[in-house]
Protein backbone atom coordinates (compact mmCIF):
# COMPACT_ATOMS: atom_id res chain seq x y z
CA UNK A 1 0.00 0.00 0.00
CA UNK A 2 2.81 2.42 0.85
CA UNK A 3 4.28 2.86 -2.62
CA UNK A 4 7.48 4.91 -2.88
CA UNK A 5 5.54 7.53 -4.85
CA UNK A 6 3.17 7.97 -1.89
CA UNK A 7 5.99 8.21 0.63
CA UNK A 8 7.80 10.74 -1.59
CA UNK A 9 4.76 12.98 -1.79
CA UNK A 10 4.22 12.58 1.97
CA UNK A 11 7.77 13.60 2.82
CA UNK A 12 8.07 16.32 0.15
CA UNK A 13 4.58 17.66 -0.48
CA UNK A 14 3.85 19.77 -3.57
CA UNK A 15 2.16 23.14 -3.18
CA UNK A 16 1.50 22.86 0.52
CA UNK A 17 0.50 26.04 2.38
CA UNK A 18 -2.46 28.38 1.94
CA UNK A 19 -2.36 31.05 -0.79
CA UNK A 20 -5.02 33.37 -2.21
CA UNK A 21 -8.08 31.62 -3.58
CA UNK A 22 -11.59 32.21 -4.89
CA UNK A 23 -13.10 29.78 -2.39
CA UNK A 24 -12.01 27.95 0.74
CA UNK A 25 -13.40 24.77 2.30
CA UNK A 26 -12.55 22.79 5.42
CA UNK A 27 -13.16 19.03 5.29
CA UNK A 28 -12.65 16.45 8.04
CA UNK A 29 -12.61 12.68 8.13
CA UNK A 30 -14.42 11.98 11.42
CA UNK A 31 -13.20 8.41 11.71
CA UNK A 32 -9.53 9.33 12.02
CA UNK A 33 -9.37 13.08 12.51
CA UNK A 34 -7.74 13.90 9.16
CA UNK A 35 -8.38 17.53 8.32
CA UNK A 36 -7.76 19.73 5.32
CA UNK A 37 -8.32 23.38 4.53
CA UNK A 38 -8.19 23.86 0.76
CA UNK A 39 -8.42 26.89 -1.53
CA UNK A 40 -9.04 26.98 -5.26
CA UNK A 41 -8.08 29.87 -7.52
CA UNK A 42 -9.50 29.93 -11.03
CA UNK A 43 -8.56 31.93 -14.09
CA UNK A 44 -11.60 31.49 -16.31
CA UNK A 45 -11.75 27.76 -16.97
CA UNK A 46 -8.20 27.15 -15.87
CA UNK A 47 -7.14 26.09 -12.39
CA UNK A 48 -4.53 28.64 -11.44
CA UNK A 49 -3.78 27.24 -7.99
CA UNK A 50 -4.89 24.69 -5.40
CA UNK A 51 -3.39 25.47 -2.02
CA UNK A 52 -3.96 23.53 1.18
CA UNK A 53 -3.03 23.04 4.79
CA UNK A 54 -3.95 20.11 6.96
CA UNK A 55 -3.03 17.30 9.23
CA UNK A 56 -3.49 13.61 8.84
CA UNK A 57 -2.02 10.32 7.81
CA UNK A 58 0.49 9.83 5.01
CA UNK A 59 -2.26 8.73 2.63
CA UNK A 60 -4.35 11.89 3.05
CA UNK A 61 -1.31 14.18 2.93
CA UNK A 62 0.26 12.50 -0.09
CA UNK A 63 -3.08 12.52 -1.88
CA UNK A 64 -3.37 16.30 -1.47
CA UNK A 65 0.15 16.71 -2.86
CA UNK A 66 -0.64 14.55 -5.89
CA UNK A 67 -3.84 16.50 -6.45
CA UNK A 68 -1.92 19.75 -6.51
CA UNK A 69 0.60 18.34 -8.97
CA UNK A 70 -2.06 16.92 -11.28
CA UNK A 71 -4.70 19.65 -11.30
CA UNK A 72 -2.88 22.98 -11.24
CA UNK A 73 -2.75 24.44 -14.75
CA UNK A 74 -5.47 22.12 -16.09
CA UNK A 75 -8.76 23.13 -17.72
CA UNK A 76 -11.74 22.41 -15.45
CA UNK A 77 -13.20 19.76 -17.76
CA UNK A 78 -9.93 17.86 -17.79
CA UNK A 79 -9.55 18.23 -14.00
CA UNK A 80 -13.02 16.82 -13.46
CA UNK A 81 -12.16 13.83 -15.64
CA UNK A 82 -9.09 13.20 -13.50
CA UNK A 83 -11.09 13.56 -10.29
CA UNK A 84 -13.76 11.14 -11.54
CA UNK A 85 -11.13 8.64 -12.64
CA UNK A 86 -9.42 8.84 -9.25
CA UNK A 87 -12.79 8.32 -7.52
CA UNK A 88 -13.42 5.29 -9.73
CA UNK A 89 -10.01 3.86 -8.83
CA UNK A 90 -10.57 4.37 -5.11
CA UNK A 91 -13.99 2.72 -5.26
CA UNK A 92 -12.66 -0.33 -7.09
CA UNK A 93 -12.02 -2.22 -3.84
CA UNK A 94 -8.75 -3.45 -5.29
CA UNK A 95 -10.66 -5.75 -7.67
CA UNK A 96 -9.43 -4.53 -11.00
CA UNK A 97 -5.92 -3.63 -12.05
CA UNK A 98 -5.87 -0.11 -13.46
CA UNK A 99 -5.55 -0.15 -17.25
CA UNK A 100 -3.22 1.95 -19.42
CA UNK A 101 -5.87 4.57 -20.13
CA UNK A 102 -6.44 5.10 -16.44
CA UNK A 103 -2.73 5.26 -15.80
CA UNK A 104 -2.33 7.92 -18.45
CA UNK A 105 -4.99 10.10 -16.82
CA UNK A 106 -3.86 9.61 -13.24
CA UNK A 107 -0.03 9.67 -13.52
CA UNK A 108 1.35 9.56 -9.92
CA UNK A 109 -2.14 9.09 -8.50
CA UNK A 110 -2.17 5.54 -9.89
CA UNK A 111 0.06 4.65 -6.90
CA UNK A 112 -3.06 4.84 -4.72
CA UNK A 113 -4.55 1.73 -6.39
CA UNK A 114 -3.35 -0.37 -3.45
CA UNK A 115 -5.17 1.86 -0.97
CA UNK A 116 -8.52 0.93 -2.52
CA UNK A 117 -8.23 -2.50 -0.88
CA UNK A 118 -8.44 -0.91 2.57
CA UNK A 119 -11.95 0.50 3.14
CA UNK A 120 -10.79 2.35 6.26
CA UNK A 121 -8.21 4.27 4.25
CA UNK A 122 -10.15 5.11 1.09
CA UNK A 123 -11.67 8.13 2.81
CA UNK A 124 -8.17 9.37 3.69
CA UNK A 125 -7.17 9.25 0.02
CA UNK A 126 -10.37 10.97 -1.11
CA UNK A 127 -10.40 13.75 1.48
CA UNK A 128 -8.56 16.39 -0.55
CA UNK A 129 -10.32 15.42 -3.80
CA UNK A 130 -13.74 15.89 -2.23
CA UNK A 131 -12.56 19.18 -0.76
CA UNK A 132 -11.34 20.30 -4.19
CA UNK A 133 -14.66 19.40 -5.81
CA UNK A 134 -16.54 21.34 -3.14
CA UNK A 135 -14.24 24.38 -3.30
CA UNK A 136 -14.45 24.47 -7.10
CA UNK A 137 -18.25 24.39 -7.00
CA UNK A 138 -18.19 27.28 -4.56
CA UNK A 139 -15.70 29.26 -6.65
CA UNK A 140 -17.87 28.81 -9.74
CA UNK A 141 -20.95 29.82 -7.76
CA UNK A 142 -19.23 33.08 -6.96
CA UNK A 143 -18.18 33.83 -10.52
CA UNK A 144 -21.63 32.97 -11.89
CA UNK A 145 -23.86 34.64 -9.35
CA UNK A 146 -21.72 37.19 -7.55
CA UNK A 147 -20.61 36.77 -3.96
CA UNK A 148 -22.61 34.29 -1.95
CA UNK A 149 -22.34 33.68 1.76
Amino acid at each position, binding site marked *: *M*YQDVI*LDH*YKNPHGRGLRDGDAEVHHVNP*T*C*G*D*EITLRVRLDGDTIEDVSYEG*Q*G*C*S*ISQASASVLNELLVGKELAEARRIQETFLELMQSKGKSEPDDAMEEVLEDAIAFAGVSK*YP*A*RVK*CALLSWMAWKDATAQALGETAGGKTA
Partner: protein
Amino acid sequence: MTQLPGLLDTEAIRKDFPVLDRVVHDGQRLVYLDNAATSQKPRQVLDVLNDYYERSNANVHRGVHVLAEEATALYEGARDKVAAFVNAPSRDEVIFTKNASESLNLVANMLGWADEPYRVDQDTEIVITEMEHHSNIVPWQLLSQRTGAKLKWFGLTEDGRLDLSEIEQIITEKTKVVSFVLVSNILGTVNPVEAIVRRAQDVGALVVIDASQAAPHMTLDVQALQADFVAFTGHKMCGPTGIGVLWGRQELLEDLPPFLGGGEMIETVSMHSSTYAPAPHKFEAGTPPIAQAVGLGAAVDYLTSIGMDNITRHEHALTHYAVGRLLEVPDLRIIGPTTAEERGATISFTLGDIHPHDVGQVLDEQGIAVRVGHHCARPVCLRYGIPATTRASFYLYSTPAEVDALVEGLEHVRNFFG
Protein backbone atom coordinates in the same frame (compact mmCIF):
# COMPACT_ATOMS: atom_id res chain seq x y z
CA MET B 1 11.83 -15.48 26.92
CA THR B 2 11.25 -12.68 29.42
CA GLN B 3 10.02 -13.93 32.79
CA LEU B 4 8.24 -11.49 35.07
CA PRO B 5 6.93 -12.19 38.57
CA GLY B 6 3.15 -12.43 38.64
CA LEU B 7 2.63 -13.67 35.09
CA LEU B 8 0.01 -16.31 34.36
CA ASP B 9 0.81 -19.52 32.53
CA THR B 10 0.02 -17.96 29.17
CA GLU B 11 1.21 -21.01 27.26
CA ALA B 12 -1.68 -22.99 28.77
CA ILE B 13 -4.19 -20.14 28.59
CA ARG B 14 -3.48 -19.40 24.93
CA LYS B 15 -4.50 -22.97 24.02
CA ASP B 16 -8.03 -22.00 25.09
CA PHE B 17 -8.18 -19.24 22.44
CA PRO B 18 -8.16 -20.73 18.94
CA VAL B 19 -7.89 -17.36 17.17
CA LEU B 20 -4.53 -16.62 18.81
CA ASP B 21 -3.00 -19.27 16.54
CA ARG B 22 -3.98 -17.34 13.45
CA VAL B 23 -1.44 -16.38 10.87
CA VAL B 24 -2.17 -13.20 8.92
CA HIS B 25 -0.69 -11.47 5.86
CA ASP B 26 1.13 -14.50 4.45
CA GLY B 27 2.95 -15.84 7.44
CA GLN B 28 2.80 -13.25 10.22
CA ARG B 29 1.76 -14.70 13.57
CA LEU B 30 -1.13 -12.66 14.99
CA VAL B 31 -0.16 -10.41 17.90
CA TYR B 32 -3.53 -9.28 19.24
CA LEU B 33 -3.18 -6.07 21.24
CA ASP B 34 -6.68 -4.64 20.76
CA ASN B 35 -8.27 -6.09 23.87
CA ALA B 36 -9.75 -2.81 25.05
CA ALA B 37 -11.90 -2.88 21.89
CA THR B 38 -12.93 -6.49 22.35
CA SER B 39 -11.36 -9.58 23.87
CA GLN B 40 -10.95 -12.90 22.14
CA LYS B 41 -13.19 -15.79 23.21
CA PRO B 42 -12.03 -19.04 24.81
CA ARG B 43 -13.20 -22.41 23.55
CA GLN B 44 -15.11 -22.83 26.84
CA VAL B 45 -17.39 -19.93 25.84
CA LEU B 46 -17.67 -20.94 22.18
CA ASP B 47 -18.66 -24.49 23.19
CA VAL B 48 -21.38 -23.26 25.54
CA LEU B 49 -22.81 -20.99 22.83
CA ASN B 50 -22.80 -23.85 20.37
CA ASP B 51 -24.37 -26.29 22.85
CA TYR B 52 -27.08 -23.83 23.68
CA TYR B 53 -28.12 -23.49 20.05
CA GLU B 54 -27.69 -27.19 19.27
CA ARG B 55 -29.53 -28.55 22.31
CA SER B 56 -31.61 -26.05 24.27
CA ASN B 57 -32.62 -23.14 22.04
CA ALA B 58 -36.06 -21.74 22.95
CA ASN B 59 -37.57 -18.49 24.11
CA VAL B 60 -37.43 -17.77 27.84
CA HIS B 61 -40.04 -17.22 30.55
CA ARG B 62 -42.87 -18.77 28.57
CA GLY B 63 -43.89 -22.12 27.26
CA VAL B 64 -44.00 -25.27 29.34
CA HIS B 65 -41.92 -27.51 27.13
CA VAL B 66 -38.53 -28.96 27.95
CA LEU B 67 -36.50 -26.60 25.79
CA ALA B 68 -38.26 -23.47 27.12
CA GLU B 69 -37.53 -24.58 30.65
CA GLU B 70 -33.90 -25.37 29.85
CA ALA B 71 -33.38 -22.06 28.08
CA THR B 72 -34.96 -20.17 30.99
CA ALA B 73 -32.81 -22.02 33.51
CA LEU B 74 -29.67 -21.28 31.49
CA TYR B 75 -30.55 -17.60 31.03
CA GLU B 76 -31.45 -17.08 34.68
CA GLY B 77 -28.44 -19.18 35.70
CA ALA B 78 -26.25 -16.69 33.85
CA ARG B 79 -27.81 -13.94 35.94
CA ASP B 80 -26.83 -15.83 39.10
CA LYS B 81 -23.27 -16.16 37.84
CA VAL B 82 -22.97 -12.48 36.97
CA ALA B 83 -24.52 -11.49 40.33
CA ALA B 84 -21.91 -13.58 42.17
CA PHE B 85 -19.13 -12.24 39.92
CA VAL B 86 -19.85 -8.63 40.97
CA ASN B 87 -20.84 -9.53 44.55
CA ALA B 88 -24.38 -8.19 44.08
CA PRO B 89 -26.53 -8.47 47.22
CA SER B 90 -29.38 -9.83 45.07
CA ARG B 91 -29.62 -11.52 41.69
CA ASP B 92 -32.61 -9.31 40.93
CA GLU B 93 -30.26 -6.34 40.72
CA VAL B 94 -28.62 -7.65 37.54
CA ILE B 95 -30.28 -6.35 34.36
CA PHE B 96 -29.18 -7.79 31.02
CA THR B 97 -28.81 -5.26 28.20
CA LYS B 98 -27.08 -5.46 24.84
CA ASN B 99 -23.92 -3.57 25.86
CA ALA B 100 -22.57 -0.95 28.26
CA SER B 101 -23.86 1.88 26.07
CA GLU B 102 -27.39 0.54 26.43
CA SER B 103 -26.86 0.14 30.17
CA LEU B 104 -25.82 3.78 30.53
CA ASN B 105 -28.63 5.00 28.27
CA LEU B 106 -31.04 2.97 30.38
CA VAL B 107 -29.95 4.73 33.59
CA ALA B 108 -30.15 8.15 31.94
CA ASN B 109 -33.66 7.41 30.72
CA MET B 110 -34.83 5.98 34.08
CA LEU B 111 -33.76 9.27 35.63
CA GLY B 112 -35.20 11.33 32.80
CA TRP B 113 -38.69 9.93 33.44
CA ALA B 114 -38.41 9.65 37.24
CA ASP B 115 -40.47 11.52 39.82
CA GLU B 116 -39.01 13.13 42.91
CA PRO B 117 -36.65 12.54 44.59
CA TYR B 118 -34.75 11.28 41.52
CA ARG B 119 -36.10 13.75 39.00
CA VAL B 120 -33.52 15.50 36.81
CA ASP B 121 -34.73 18.94 35.72
CA GLN B 122 -33.56 22.48 34.97
CA ASP B 123 -32.73 23.17 38.59
CA THR B 124 -30.39 20.20 38.87
CA GLU B 125 -26.94 19.19 37.65
CA ILE B 126 -25.32 16.13 36.09
CA VAL B 127 -21.59 15.48 36.58
CA ILE B 128 -19.32 13.41 34.31
CA THR B 129 -15.59 13.60 33.46
CA GLU B 130 -13.49 14.58 30.46
CA MET B 131 -12.08 11.03 30.17
CA GLU B 132 -15.39 9.31 29.50
CA HIS B 133 -16.05 7.09 26.52
CA HIS B 134 -18.66 8.70 24.27
CA SER B 135 -21.16 6.19 25.69
CA ASN B 136 -20.91 7.94 29.06
CA ILE B 137 -21.05 11.44 27.57
CA VAL B 138 -23.77 11.46 24.94
CA PRO B 139 -26.59 9.89 27.04
CA TRP B 140 -26.03 12.61 29.65
CA GLN B 141 -25.87 15.35 27.01
CA LEU B 142 -29.21 14.09 25.71
CA LEU B 143 -30.67 14.04 29.23
CA SER B 144 -29.32 17.53 29.84
CA GLN B 145 -30.80 18.86 26.59
CA ARG B 146 -34.19 17.27 27.25
CA THR B 147 -34.55 18.32 30.88
CA GLY B 148 -32.57 21.55 31.03
CA ALA B 149 -30.26 20.11 33.69
CA LYS B 150 -26.75 21.54 33.65
CA LEU B 151 -23.96 19.18 32.53
CA LYS B 152 -20.63 19.61 34.38
CA TRP B 153 -17.43 17.62 34.30
CA PHE B 154 -14.08 17.02 35.91
CA GLY B 155 -11.06 17.98 33.78
CA LEU B 156 -7.80 16.06 33.48
CA THR B 157 -4.28 16.65 34.77
CA GLU B 158 -1.24 16.64 32.49
CA ASP B 159 -0.37 13.09 33.55
CA GLY B 160 -3.74 11.67 32.59
CA ARG B 161 -5.62 11.65 35.88
CA LEU B 162 -8.85 13.26 37.03
CA ASP B 163 -8.41 16.75 38.41
CA LEU B 164 -10.45 16.57 41.61
CA SER B 165 -9.05 19.80 43.07
CA GLU B 166 -12.42 21.54 42.66
CA ILE B 167 -14.60 18.59 43.61
CA GLU B 168 -16.73 20.70 45.97
CA GLN B 169 -17.51 23.23 43.24
CA ILE B 170 -18.27 20.53 40.68
CA ILE B 171 -20.37 18.16 42.78
CA THR B 172 -22.82 20.40 44.65
CA GLU B 173 -26.18 20.26 46.42
CA LYS B 174 -27.77 20.59 42.98
CA THR B 175 -26.05 17.46 41.62
CA LYS B 176 -28.49 14.62 40.99
CA VAL B 177 -26.17 12.14 39.37
CA VAL B 178 -22.41 11.62 39.02
CA SER B 179 -21.35 9.20 36.28
CA PHE B 180 -17.72 8.28 35.70
CA VAL B 181 -15.46 5.63 34.28
CA LEU B 182 -13.63 3.27 36.62
CA VAL B 183 -10.79 2.55 34.16
CA SER B 184 -10.27 4.82 31.14
CA ASN B 185 -10.43 3.11 27.76
CA ILE B 186 -7.87 5.50 26.27
CA LEU B 187 -5.58 6.61 29.12
CA GLY B 188 -5.67 3.39 31.12
CA THR B 189 -6.12 5.43 34.30
CA VAL B 190 -7.81 3.75 37.27
CA ASN B 191 -9.91 6.43 38.95
CA PRO B 192 -10.18 7.11 42.70
CA VAL B 193 -13.72 5.87 43.28
CA GLU B 194 -13.86 6.50 47.00
CA ALA B 195 -13.19 10.25 46.89
CA ILE B 196 -15.87 10.81 44.25
CA VAL B 197 -18.45 8.53 45.87
CA ARG B 198 -17.96 10.15 49.28
CA ARG B 199 -18.60 13.62 47.88
CA ALA B 200 -21.59 12.41 45.86
CA GLN B 201 -23.10 10.74 48.90
CA ASP B 202 -22.58 13.92 50.95
CA VAL B 203 -24.80 15.85 48.56
CA GLY B 204 -27.27 13.01 47.98
CA ALA B 205 -26.37 12.41 44.32
CA LEU B 206 -26.66 9.01 42.66
CA VAL B 207 -23.41 7.42 41.47
CA VAL B 208 -23.12 5.59 38.15
CA ILE B 209 -19.89 3.77 37.33
CA ASP B 210 -18.87 2.71 33.82
CA ALA B 211 -16.90 -0.46 34.54
CA SER B 212 -16.51 -1.61 30.92
CA GLN B 213 -12.70 -1.60 31.13
CA ALA B 214 -12.65 -2.80 34.75
CA ALA B 215 -14.90 -5.87 34.79
CA PRO B 216 -12.61 -7.88 32.46
CA HIS B 217 -9.46 -7.10 34.41
CA MET B 218 -10.10 -6.82 38.16
CA THR B 219 -12.36 -8.01 40.93
CA LEU B 220 -15.53 -5.96 40.64
CA ASP B 221 -17.39 -5.66 43.93
CA VAL B 222 -20.44 -3.45 43.58
CA GLN B 223 -20.92 -3.32 47.35
CA ALA B 224 -17.35 -2.18 47.97
CA LEU B 225 -17.67 0.45 45.21
CA GLN B 226 -20.76 1.85 46.99
CA ALA B 227 -22.18 2.97 43.66
CA ASP B 228 -25.87 3.03 42.79
CA PHE B 229 -25.43 1.70 39.25
CA VAL B 230 -22.56 -0.16 37.56
CA ALA B 231 -22.47 -0.78 33.80
CA PHE B 232 -20.28 -3.13 31.79
CA THR B 233 -20.27 -5.21 28.64
CA GLY B 234 -19.73 -8.91 27.99
CA HIS B 235 -17.59 -8.92 24.85
CA LYS B 236 -14.56 -7.29 26.49
CA MET B 237 -14.47 -10.05 29.15
CA CYS B 238 -14.31 -13.18 26.98
CA GLY B 239 -18.07 -13.21 26.39
CA PRO B 240 -19.99 -12.78 23.14
CA THR B 241 -21.09 -9.45 21.67
CA GLY B 242 -24.68 -8.38 22.20
CA ILE B 243 -24.80 -8.78 25.97
CA GLY B 244 -24.22 -6.10 28.58
CA VAL B 245 -25.04 -5.65 32.23
CA LEU B 246 -26.52 -2.92 34.35
CA TRP B 247 -26.33 -3.56 38.06
CA GLY B 248 -28.53 -1.26 40.16
CA ARG B 249 -29.44 -1.06 43.83
CA GLN B 250 -32.70 -2.87 44.44
CA GLU B 251 -34.68 -0.03 46.00
CA LEU B 252 -33.77 2.22 43.06
CA LEU B 253 -34.84 -0.41 40.55
CA GLU B 254 -38.14 -0.69 42.41
CA ASP B 255 -38.71 3.08 42.47
CA LEU B 256 -37.50 4.11 39.04
CA PRO B 257 -39.74 3.85 35.97
CA PRO B 258 -39.15 1.47 33.06
CA PHE B 259 -37.72 2.79 29.80
CA LEU B 260 -38.44 0.27 27.05
CA GLY B 261 -41.93 -1.25 27.10
CA GLY B 262 -42.97 -4.59 25.64
CA GLY B 263 -43.15 -8.29 26.32
CA GLU B 264 -41.46 -9.76 29.39
CA MET B 265 -41.52 -6.50 31.33
CA ILE B 266 -45.20 -6.51 32.29
CA GLU B 267 -47.44 -7.96 34.98
CA THR B 268 -50.86 -7.26 33.46
CA VAL B 269 -51.81 -5.31 30.35
CA SER B 270 -55.14 -3.78 29.44
CA MET B 271 -55.91 -1.39 26.62
CA HIS B 272 -55.82 1.51 29.08
CA SER B 273 -52.78 0.78 31.18
CA SER B 274 -50.34 -1.83 32.39
CA THR B 275 -48.54 -2.85 35.52
CA TYR B 276 -44.95 -3.92 35.44
CA ALA B 277 -43.00 -6.97 36.42
CA PRO B 278 -40.56 -6.54 39.29
CA ALA B 279 -36.91 -5.80 38.48
CA PRO B 280 -34.87 -6.98 36.70
CA HIS B 281 -37.60 -8.00 34.21
CA LYS B 282 -39.16 -4.52 34.36
CA PHE B 283 -36.09 -3.33 32.43
CA GLU B 284 -35.78 -6.23 29.99
CA ALA B 285 -38.50 -5.66 27.40
CA GLY B 286 -38.72 -8.12 24.54
CA THR B 287 -36.89 -11.37 23.89
CA PRO B 288 -33.48 -10.88 25.52
CA PRO B 289 -30.11 -11.93 24.07
CA ILE B 290 -30.45 -15.42 25.52
CA ALA B 291 -27.50 -17.27 24.00
CA GLN B 292 -25.32 -14.24 24.63
CA ALA B 293 -26.27 -14.14 28.32
CA VAL B 294 -25.52 -17.85 28.60
CA GLY B 295 -22.18 -17.21 26.88
CA LEU B 296 -21.43 -14.41 29.34
CA GLY B 297 -22.15 -16.83 32.17
CA ALA B 298 -19.56 -19.19 30.68
CA ALA B 299 -17.09 -16.31 30.37
CA VAL B 300 -17.61 -15.47 34.04
CA ASP B 301 -16.94 -19.12 34.91
CA TYR B 302 -13.79 -19.06 32.79
CA LEU B 303 -12.42 -15.86 34.34
CA THR B 304 -13.29 -17.06 37.84
CA SER B 305 -11.44 -20.32 37.24
CA ILE B 306 -8.30 -18.33 36.38
CA GLY B 307 -8.94 -15.89 39.23
CA MET B 308 -9.55 -12.17 38.79
CA ASP B 309 -6.77 -11.26 41.23
CA ASN B 310 -4.36 -13.42 39.21
CA ILE B 311 -5.44 -11.66 36.02
CA THR B 312 -4.88 -8.26 37.65
CA ARG B 313 -1.40 -9.33 38.80
CA HIS B 314 -0.52 -10.63 35.33
CA GLU B 315 -1.63 -7.45 33.62
CA HIS B 316 0.10 -5.25 36.16
CA ALA B 317 3.42 -7.03 35.57
CA LEU B 318 2.93 -6.81 31.83
CA THR B 319 1.95 -3.13 31.97
CA HIS B 320 5.04 -2.32 34.04
CA TYR B 321 7.18 -4.09 31.44
CA ALA B 322 5.37 -2.51 28.47
CA VAL B 323 5.55 1.06 29.80
CA GLY B 324 9.30 0.65 30.37
CA ARG B 325 9.92 -0.80 26.93
CA LEU B 326 7.73 1.71 25.10
CA LEU B 327 9.49 4.64 26.75
CA GLU B 328 12.72 3.33 25.19
CA VAL B 329 11.31 4.05 21.73
CA PRO B 330 12.57 7.46 20.52
CA ASP B 331 9.83 10.11 20.02
CA LEU B 332 7.21 7.96 21.73
CA ARG B 333 4.93 9.85 24.09
CA ILE B 334 2.54 7.95 26.35
CA ILE B 335 -0.82 9.71 26.66
CA GLY B 336 -1.81 8.80 30.21
CA PRO B 337 0.05 7.69 33.33
CA THR B 338 3.69 6.77 32.60
CA THR B 339 3.97 4.23 35.40
CA ALA B 340 2.04 1.03 36.03
CA GLU B 341 0.55 2.41 39.26
CA GLU B 342 -3.21 3.02 39.34
CA ARG B 343 -3.49 2.18 35.66
CA GLY B 344 -4.80 -0.71 33.62
CA ALA B 345 -3.21 -2.60 30.74
CA THR B 346 -4.27 -0.12 28.07
CA ILE B 347 -1.51 2.15 26.78
CA SER B 348 -2.10 4.99 24.31
CA PHE B 349 0.77 6.80 22.67
CA THR B 350 1.91 9.02 19.85
CA LEU B 351 5.04 8.40 17.82
CA GLY B 352 6.65 11.65 16.71
CA ASP B 353 4.66 13.20 13.87
CA ILE B 354 3.68 9.87 12.38
CA HIS B 355 -0.08 9.65 12.15
CA PRO B 356 -1.60 6.78 14.19
CA HIS B 357 -3.28 5.42 11.04
CA ASP B 358 0.12 4.95 9.48
CA VAL B 359 1.49 3.43 12.68
CA GLY B 360 -1.43 0.99 12.86
CA GLN B 361 -1.21 0.07 9.18
CA VAL B 362 2.50 -0.72 9.24
CA LEU B 363 2.09 -2.68 12.50
CA ASP B 364 -0.73 -4.63 10.87
CA GLU B 365 1.57 -5.58 8.01
CA GLN B 366 3.68 -7.27 10.72
CA GLY B 367 0.64 -9.06 12.17
CA ILE B 368 0.28 -6.70 15.14
CA ALA B 369 -3.30 -5.60 15.82
CA VAL B 370 -3.67 -2.29 17.67
CA ARG B 371 -6.38 0.33 17.67
CA VAL B 372 -5.83 3.78 16.17
CA GLY B 373 -7.99 6.89 16.32
CA HIS B 374 -9.72 8.74 19.12
CA HIS B 375 -11.09 5.56 20.75
CA CYS B 376 -14.57 7.05 21.20
CA ALA B 377 -13.03 9.48 23.67
CA ARG B 378 -12.42 12.49 21.45
CA PRO B 379 -12.47 15.05 24.33
CA VAL B 380 -9.32 13.34 25.69
CA CYS B 381 -7.51 13.88 22.37
CA LEU B 382 -8.63 17.52 22.32
CA ARG B 383 -7.43 17.93 25.92
CA TYR B 384 -3.94 16.74 25.03
CA GLY B 385 -3.82 18.55 21.68
CA ILE B 386 -3.49 15.45 19.52
CA PRO B 387 -5.70 14.25 16.65
CA ALA B 388 -5.54 10.60 17.62
CA THR B 389 -3.43 7.95 19.34
CA THR B 390 -2.21 4.43 18.78
CA ARG B 391 -3.45 2.15 21.55
CA ALA B 392 -2.07 -1.21 22.64
CA SER B 393 -4.17 -3.09 25.20
CA PHE B 394 -3.34 -6.37 26.89
CA TYR B 395 -5.27 -9.20 28.49
CA LEU B 396 -4.78 -12.44 30.37
CA TYR B 397 -3.26 -14.19 27.34
CA SER B 398 -0.84 -11.39 26.42
CA THR B 399 2.89 -12.07 26.82
CA PRO B 400 6.15 -10.12 27.24
CA ALA B 401 7.13 -11.49 23.81
CA GLU B 402 4.14 -9.64 22.35
CA VAL B 403 5.31 -6.43 24.04
CA ASP B 404 8.71 -7.02 22.42
CA ALA B 405 7.05 -7.57 19.04
CA LEU B 406 5.23 -4.27 19.42
CA VAL B 407 8.42 -2.40 20.28
CA GLU B 408 10.24 -3.94 17.30
CA GLY B 409 7.27 -3.13 15.11
CA LEU B 410 7.40 0.50 16.20
CA GLU B 411 11.11 0.67 15.33
CA HIS B 412 10.18 -0.55 11.88
CA VAL B 413 7.46 2.13 11.63
CA ARG B 414 9.99 4.82 12.56
CA ASN B 415 12.46 3.65 9.94
CA PHE B 416 9.72 3.42 7.34
CA PHE B 417 8.46 6.97 7.75
CA GLY B 418 11.72 8.48 9.06
